[in-house]
């Protein structure tokens, strides 16, 4: 039973004082799916890349701890993150762009097998075909010999999942794995990820806009806005009874009930307090200071000075 624990993750652009991610904490256990939601620019992808140690060179990790089974991945002296693909691996938004266009997809799977499992070339090739079969690709021998441009987006995402599985990861990050896909394929890919997580026993962080998918697949949810963790808790609780005004706003946006009092403004990263403060109808002077993540119950946290106690109060 392995667990990923992220604490106080803070990230910013080199040479700028402002934080792009501020003090983010969450955890995922194996076999569990954590949904990470929030609008574009909320820092979901950034958080994933930070955990993977794949931040672009202009962006630096400023503080935080990332542990798997109590093993610290962040070197606190250099603020760099060392992880193995066996611990953490990731699948991306644009499956076709995420595969090497000049390499047969079978080889892209088998080279990972060779690397991580010490298999011979021939064994790895064979295993790769099995893995492609495992992720629901019909005619896996034929597909293994194909190049990415010959495959559809959905197929490419399945190949990506196969590559990720080849690492036998403890935790799998999926960054909007269906955004670039046809609506008809999206459900299949979501189901595949859930199935794989269950059977392989790995934890999954699912970054998505699709609240319906979150409610169906995820055990727990984390809501991000402007690089700040707004609220986290079990899916049912957060979706049914959001405590953060932003969570409420996000859920209502999904069913077109947006509060017309909430101004349409971009994220203001310069805000020292709550980053939703300038859009929030409940904001007052206290909101100029950063609200700590307060635990409501053991599993539930909200980062707000004025949490919604009951639904009625917000409406």
């Amino acid at each position, binding site marked *: 039973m392995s667990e990923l624990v992220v604490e106080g993750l803070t990230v910013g652009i080199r040479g700028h004082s402002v934080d792009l991610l501020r003090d983010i904490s969450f955890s995922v256990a194996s076999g569990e799916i954590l949904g990470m939601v929030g609008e574009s620019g909320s820092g979901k992808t950034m958080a994933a890349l930070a955990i993977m140690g794949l931040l672009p060179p202009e962006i630096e990790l400023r503080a935080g701890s990332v542990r798997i089974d109590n093993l610290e991945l962040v070197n606190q002296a250099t603020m760099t993150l060392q992880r193995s*693909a066996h611990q953490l691996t990731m699948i991306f938004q644009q499956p076709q762009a995420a595969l090497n*266009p000049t390499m047969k997809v079978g080889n892209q799977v088998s080279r990972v097998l060779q690397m991580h499992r010490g298999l011979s070339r021939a064994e790895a090739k064979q295993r790769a075909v099995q893995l492609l079969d495992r992720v629901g690709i019909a005619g896996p021998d034929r597909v293994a010999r194909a190049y990415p441009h010959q495959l559809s987006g959905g197929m490419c995402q399945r190949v990506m999942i196969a590559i990720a599985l080849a690492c036998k990861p403890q935790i799998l990050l999926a960054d909007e794995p269906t955004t670039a896909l046809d609506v008809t394929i999206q459900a299949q890919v979501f189901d595949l990820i859930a199935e794989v997580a269950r059977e392989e026993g790995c934890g999954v962080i699912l970054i998505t806009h699709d609240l319906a998918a979150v409610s169906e697949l995820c055990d727990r949810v984390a809501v991000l806005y402007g690089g700040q963790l707004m609220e986290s808790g079990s899916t049912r609780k957060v979706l049914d009874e959001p405590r953060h005004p932003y969570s409420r706003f996000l859920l209502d946006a999904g069913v077109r009930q947006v509060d017309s009092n909430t101004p349409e403004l971009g994220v203001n990263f310069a805000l020292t307090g709550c980053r939703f403060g300038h859009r929030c109808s409940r904001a007052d002077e206290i909101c100029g200071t950063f609200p700590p993540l307060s635990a409501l119950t053991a599993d539930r946290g909200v980062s707000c000075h004025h949490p919604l106690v009951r639904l009625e109060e917000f409406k």
Partner: protein
Amino acid sequence: MSVGALFGIVVVVFLVVRILPGDGAVLRAGPYASASRIAQIRKEFGLDKSLLSQFQTYMVNVLHGNLGTSIRTQAPVTTELMSRLAASLEMALASVLLASLVGIPMGMWAAARRGKWVDHIVRIFAVIGSSMALFWLGLLMIYLFFYRLGWAPGPVGRLNIGTNPPTSITGLFTVDAALQGQWAILTDALRHLALPVITLGLVLSAPIIKMVRSAMIESLDSDYVRTARSVGVRGYEILWRDGFRNALIPVTTTMGIVFGYMLGGNIIIEFLFNWPGIGRYAFTAAQNNDIDALQGFVIVVGVLYIILNILIDLIYVWVDPRIRIRKAPTS
């Protein structure tokens, strides 16, 4: 396309020589010819006929591989150019090879260490390289390595005066000598190749560095490299199999341009090193207003350029699976 381009080249060359100010007969006759001599030449070369009929004659000749007669040597231009082609190709191939061996690793190194001092130095090298005056660099090379240090032979052509060329198989002296085990000739040929090839190779490496660097940066920033990193692929594997393998597509284009540039740039180097190739032939032609010879050279270069472009297209097919295989194996 290629047939059309070749036709276009012939037309353009024909028109440039006939329409621009400068009387072909006067040029051919030389500066001290009498009026009657000029008139005679005009008749002899059919320059008194209409432009269209001149073009007809010219086109028919070119199609038969007849590029005219050199007024300097009185020999057919086609034969003269063909006998010199191998010398030029040997130098061109060796230079492009050297330029790639220098340029590709340097470009990759700079890309992998982007923004670091290595990158800055490589960029400065590339900028200076692309503004280098070939003739000047060649002169300095001769001064330093021949005159001062005595490491290289003087600019006397492909072999020492006393050395006999190897029996011709490909026409490339180094290859022929190596194939037949004539090591003394091989050494001599290599020593004579060294200076011109280093000069050209250094200059030609500049555009290769620039292209490799920018293509590598783009490729290393790509999603697929991020994928490879996320699943634990590392170091050389990423640099070559993910980075370079994909950067190769734009780099191939640059290699074509560089090789094409070569066909013009070698005039200077062949002149400087007394290299008996088509470039020096063209130079002598230009000096002597040997219009047919110069025209013939331009057409041969045009043909080489077209062949080169076809080769590049073939290389694309090999380098880029998206061109090679369009059909999807599955629906």
